């Protein structure tokens, strides 16, 4: 497409903060959007060079185009998170829309002690949790640890299928069947483990930020994260591991 390389930005170290909006820079997508002014297009195509903080500042000063640029930058991440949390297209759309509308309302109160991305993902998480709670109804267990005993490290299941992978993540990441495998493995996780993994490992929040967003203790967040990582490792290795380089589990018991 002749797109310029995506510049790394120190302010947003997680790579997707730079890449999430790249595909949006294709003129095709810009043209498809109705009612855009020339100036908006200008901002749109130059947003990768503008730091979030500057766009936030402009938006806070009343610049809608700056806010739309931020929206384009993060809409895919918010939608993906919602979709993976809720596993339901319509609910994911509702949560995405709610998130950005709440962001419009709350923008004045955003004080930049967190990054804009983290702030936005936290709003999205809270909106998604509301949907989950509504689904669960009052009679079933809630996500909060107050109604659930904290998980300990003592019942962590040991790895079973241990083998070197046949390919590197770089070779695997763009394959369609691998992407499907990743989504299927996520769906098999318990909700409480999946949510922690999504925020911490997919979205790159810290353990503390993840714990706050989900209203969990950090200790519980860490145990859930470990369970999620181990379970995903187990599932992915069964498909991506090289059977010839399998290490027997019996050798592992010491």
């Amino acid at each position, binding site marked *: 497409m002749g797109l310029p390389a995506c510049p790394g930005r120190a302010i947003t170290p997680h790579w997707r903060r730079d890449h999430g909006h790249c595909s949006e820079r294709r003129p095709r997508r810009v043209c498809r959007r109705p009612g855009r002014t020339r100036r908006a297009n200008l901002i749109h195509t130059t947003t990768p060079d503008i730091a979030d903080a500057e766009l936030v500042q402009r938006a806070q000063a009343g610049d809608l185009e700056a806010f739309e640029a931020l929206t384009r930058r993060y809409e895919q991440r918010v939608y993906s998170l919602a979709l993976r949390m809720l596993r339901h297209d319509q609910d994911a759309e509702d949560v995405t829309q709610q998130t*950005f509308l709440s962001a419009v309302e709350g923008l004045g109160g955003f004080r930049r002690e967190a990054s804009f991305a983290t702030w936005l993902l936290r709003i999205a998480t809270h909106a998604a949790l509301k949907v989950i709670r509504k689904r669960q109804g009052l009679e079933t267990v809630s996500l909060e640890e107050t109604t659930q005993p904290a998980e300990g490290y003592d019942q962590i299941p040991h790895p079973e299928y241990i*083998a070197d992978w046949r390919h590197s993540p770089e070779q695997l990441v763009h394959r369609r069947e691998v992407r499907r495998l*990743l989504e299927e493995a996520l769906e098999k996780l318990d909700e409480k483990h999946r949510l922690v993994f999504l925020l911490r490992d997919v979205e790159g929040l810290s353990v503390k930020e993840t714990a706050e967003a989900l209203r969990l203790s950090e200790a519980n967040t860490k145990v859930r994260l*470990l369970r999620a990582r181990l379970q*995903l490792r187990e599932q992915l290795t069964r498909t991506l591991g090289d059977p010839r380089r399998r290490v027997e589990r019996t050798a592992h018991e010491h």
Partner: protein
Amino acid sequence: MKCAELLAALNEYVDGTVDPAICEEFEKHMAGCNPCQVVVDNIRKTITLYKEGKPHPLPVKFRRQLHAALRQRWKETHCRKD
């Protein structure tokens, strides 16, 4: 350090936040335990795959609707202030 203890310190190890004393024990155990070595490598690759995976694109129709709703809400919020 035993395999089970290694598992308990796995998060901190792969996230690079492990206490240096535990880190040393962790690596000593791995040096003598091939399965644990492979598990740690598997975990790292698992996390990398998910981190580097592409987000889901928004359905085109929804995207249009989202931006229209945003502009509308923006107008309402900013008119109220005036």
